[in-house]
């Protein structure tokens, strides 16, 4: 139902998420933002069960900000990803596991850009590109075919558009628009919302 995608370039990470908040068969909102800003250069994209997404993502967000307040410097994306994974794993075998699928994208001043894929079983993988949701079945092969490690920003946005067009064409559910953001050494930039007309 929900769709997340991330593409890492040589000095940036491009991420996009759909804008639909659904409740069974009804779209309750068409402009819902699924991205949570953990710090100046880290974004957490979160989909999954209704209340769990916001609760878990806000919990991680506040803890990352608390770390900065206590220690005077921010968590790196790799540390934030591992912290998130640890929390997800701790709750996994409790009575109240969080059923959320995540993408964490960030830019580290020393290590460069990073994209981390996490699923509800708290597996963590650093990947050059990743996607969540049923739409991932349709678009991962496009990413396999056209991705190169040295993509420019425009080429990455074009690759994202290819994926969105494929969803528009073949995915049974209507995902009319996507929020797109780009993270580089300057921080998080909002790009133009990707909207596709009906085919």
């Amino acid at each position: 139902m929900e769709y997340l995608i991330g593409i890492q370039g040589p000095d940036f990470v491009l991420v996009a998420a759909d804008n639909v908040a659904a409740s069974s068969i009804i779209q309750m909102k068409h402009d819902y933002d699924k991205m949570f800003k953990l710090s100046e250069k880290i974004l957490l994209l979160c989909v999954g069960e209704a209340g769990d997404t916001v609760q878990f993502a806000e919990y991680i967000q506040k803890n990352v900000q608390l770390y900065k307040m206590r220690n005077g410097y921010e968590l790196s994306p790799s540390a934030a990803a591992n912290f998130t994974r640890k929390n997800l794993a701790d709750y996994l075998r409790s009575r109240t596991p969080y059923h959320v699928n995540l993408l964490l994208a960030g830019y580290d001043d020393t290590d460069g850009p990073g994209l981390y894929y996490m699923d509800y079983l708290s597996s963590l993988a650093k990947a050059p590109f990743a996607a969540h949701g049923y739409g991932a079945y349709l678009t991962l092969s496009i990413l396999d075919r056209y991705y190169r490690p040295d993509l420019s920003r425009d080429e990455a946005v074009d690759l994202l558009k290819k994926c969105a067009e494929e969803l528009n064409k073949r995915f049974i559910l209507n995902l009319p628009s996507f929020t797109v953001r780009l993270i580089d050494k300057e921080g998080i930039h909002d790009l133009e919302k990707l909207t596709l007309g009906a085919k």
Partner: protein
Amino acid sequence: LAMASGSIPFPTSDCYNLRCSRLETSENNCGVPLHFFIPPLPHSSSFINTPLSSFCPPKNSMTVQKPFRLAHGTTTLGFIFQGGVIAAADTRASAGGLVACPAVHKITPIHSHLVVTSSGSGADCMLWERILIREIRLYQLRHGHRLSIRATAKLLSSMLHPFKGTEMCVALTLCGWDNGPKLIYVCSDGARLQGDVFSVGSGSPYAYGVLDRELRWSLSKGEAISLAREAVFRATHRDAYSGNNVDLFHITKSLESGNVLFDVVHQSRKSKRGKNKS
């Protein structure tokens, strides 16, 4: 709204789920006895729900034998337009195939600038409305100003969180005014959404159909009221579990002279025969 007959026995075991431990540490447990607050044997719901499962009750009931299939029959809606916020709801409470009550108030004023429309289980909604009224009033008395509607929604969502995964079912829409019209949907699954138009309940798809066609920001007050009434009426026509009359509330910014802010446009207790149900 669904009414369940029969009393739920209080759980006798002392081992309560840690999920509710947050309630134990909150001050005074909101004044409610702890064993009343903690749900019996909560279990986590499975994520892979069948598409219409939010309209069907969860199948596993480990403690209480349900006398009949509880249906969450209701049509409620709320939307924002240039003249404020409109909240509308039907007035039928169903218990399976029985109309338990044809004249239920599904829209409840919380304070002078906020109403809440309720759907889901009738008893749960009534309880949580009372708790919300109490908590908002306490906040106002303690801090000297009124809690904003977004904060009210977040407070309600946090109070409902320990019961996630149990059979409690409330889906409330907070419709109100603070520095502008606000409409926020809160449900016991944990969802909290702010938006311009929401419809909740078994009749909501039918109501959305009518609302989406004609809803605009620039509607006049009369047009907005008749649109809300029309949407609920069409939903009650198609949905078996919604019906009887239509309650309508219009919430607007307060007048400086401090007049009554609720414009109870159409609260009809009489059901008319014939095709016009409102």
